[in-house]
């Protein structure tokens, strides 16, 4: 045997990839990259599937540039990467409390509002939030509610209420749906639901109240199948789960999937009367971005009602853009679980960030809950 054999295998393979795959993908790429200069790129750090493909195409035509996205699946992933010093992102789409953190870290660039004439389209109810007074840094993009999704037929059969957190916390209800319930695998979201059910604020940091909430969670835990952040979408849609604590756009997806695949049941979702968490995602400029000009152009583009509506029609997210309402499909626009009315809006809260001591305490409480 020849030692050249040792190198031959990987080297040949490397060569093959280097030669073959660009060729394959090249065909698909040509029309997109075309004459565009390499440096003419807007870098967006975004959630996956959080902008409609046709919107991207139109924006790239308009700006004669390329929109390159990098993805995260959780605010914390994005914050960790940026905290370590990662640079090069022009735009980020953080949720309220993460944006609060970024502002306080001094990681963001102030907006130039003269470049954003479409800002007038935003519903004032979503402007001037406690996280960014006067919207110095941020423009609202989309929002979701944390609520309850359920198998409508099954829950009706069992005669269970769907307008209260009691269904995931009270053993008298849970007994009928044992092992068919999941709750979010998120310290803040689950505590918020428990605190809301107990009549406290979702942002309550009183340790006594936390203890009450964690007792409530521990009492209900044996009835839950799992903590789940993603799989509940599919499991609801195929009928394995009957109740799930989760996000409104995920419930929208589950309901759509159930209908499209011809299930004999429908997936319903509603906001509990005790109140719930509202997560407002905003577009912000990162300090390290190279193309603030393109970034402003993009924000103004997304503030246009038609472009903004495309996202809502795609994933069923809430839309803070009044100009978008006319383009949104009526079954979404009239869904109260996606577009809460004014009365319900008063019972929604946005989560605030916790200080580091509270974070550590909550983490220990959460570990205790899980280990029980």
């Amino acid at each position: 045997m020849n030692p050249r054999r040792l190198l031959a295998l990987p080297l040949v393979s490397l060569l093959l990839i280097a030669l073959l795959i660009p060729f394959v993908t090249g065909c698909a790429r040509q029309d997109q990259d075309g004459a565009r200069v390499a440096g003419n790129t807007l870098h967006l750090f975004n959630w996956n599937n959080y902008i409609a493909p046709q919107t991207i195409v139109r924006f790239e035509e308009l700006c004669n540039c390329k929109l390159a996205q990098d993805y995260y699946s959780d605010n914390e992933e994005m914050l960790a990467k940026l905290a370590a010093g990662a640079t090069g992102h022009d735009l980020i789409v953080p949720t309220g409390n993460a944006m609060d953190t970024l502002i306080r870290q001094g990681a963001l660039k102030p907006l130039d509002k003269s470049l954003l004439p479409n800002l007038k389209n935003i519903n004032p109810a979503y402007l001037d939030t406690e996280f960014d007074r006067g919207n110095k840094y941020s423009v609202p993009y989309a929002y979701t509610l944390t609520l309850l999704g359920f198998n409508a037929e099954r829950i009706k059969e069992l005669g269970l209420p769907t307008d209260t957190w009691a269904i995931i916390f009270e053993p008298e209800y849970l007994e009928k749906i044992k092992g068919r319930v999941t709750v979010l695998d998120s310290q803040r979201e689950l505590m918020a639901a428990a605190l809301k059910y107990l009549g406290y604020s979702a942002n309550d940091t009183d340790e006594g109240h936390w203890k009450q909430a964690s007792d409530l969670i521990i009492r209900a835990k044996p009835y839950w199948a799992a903590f789940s952040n993603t799989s509940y979408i599919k499991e609801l849609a195929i009928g394995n789960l009957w109740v799930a604590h989760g996000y409104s756009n995920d419930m929208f997806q589950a309901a759509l999937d159930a209908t499209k695949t011809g299930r004999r049941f429908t997936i319903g979702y509603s906001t509990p009367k005790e109140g719930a968490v509202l997560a407002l995602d905003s577009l912000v400029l990162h300090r390290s971005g190279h193309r603030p000009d393109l970034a402003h152009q993009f924000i103004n583009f997304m503030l246009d009602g038609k472009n903004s509506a495309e996202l809502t029609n795609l994933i069923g997210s809430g839309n803070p853009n009044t100009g978008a309402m006319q383009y949104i499909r009526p079954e979404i626009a009239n869904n109260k679980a996606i577009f809460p009315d004014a009365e319900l809006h008063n019972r929604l809260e946005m989560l605030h960030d916790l200080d580091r001591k509270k974070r550590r305490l909550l983490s220990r409480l959460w570990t205790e809950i899980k280990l029980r």
Partner: protein
Amino acid sequence: MRRGNIWLWSMAVLIYAFLYIPLAIVVLYSFNDSRLNAEWVGFTLSWYQALFNNTEMLTAARNSLIIAFSASLGATVLGTMAGLAIHRYKLKVLPILVFTPVAMPEILLGVSLLLFFLQVLNLTLGMVSIIIAHTTFCIGFVAIIVRARLQGMDESLFEAARDLGASRWQTFRLVTLPLIMPAVVAGALMSFTLSIDDFVITFFTKGVGEPILPIQIYTMIKVAVTPEVNAISTLLMLLTLVMIIIAARLESRASSGRVKMPREIVKQ
């Protein structure tokens, strides 16, 4: 002997089944005409069609393959050296250095390499940083398997070669390397699978505007699994298979006629 073989074969079939049943589901549902991976509805190629129009996903697959091949190449060379050195020279520090990355939680490795790249080396993140990071945690896997191969090996083989006047390089080339080859190949294959699957370290060490497959899939799954992901997994597997077969063909043609059994050399 025969009865033992039947027993071995049936166990082996069961284990191959264990390895391939989940995979069969992945492949099957990539042709399923339903967005939900739940039950068979009908045959379709639409997921593959969607995939071939998804530039981002294809670029991500290409980037991931390049990273996986480069990192497994680097890790195999360095890991084999480390394995040999540990076995031959009874070193004290190297074994700890080689095995600790295997024991270190990957998230810590990811964050620490990110801090190191950005704040100490002042490096721009990109493919190179990912390849370095993957090489770091794969070296240990290769070294461990190479060392296990060498352990208990008949030292007289090496001595005999030396006594016959073979130089150190000749001994390595004609005796040692062929003997450890199965371990080297196994180490390379392990590194490849580790690299192509890694989400955490890749997320932290990747640069901007560069799609990498595990990141695309991981973040996409948060929005529910679509059969498009099954399709890319199927293709990735096929592509890996084809490339390994072509590479094996090419290199066996290149080196045919020169293959000698190590023991014959020693006996000469």
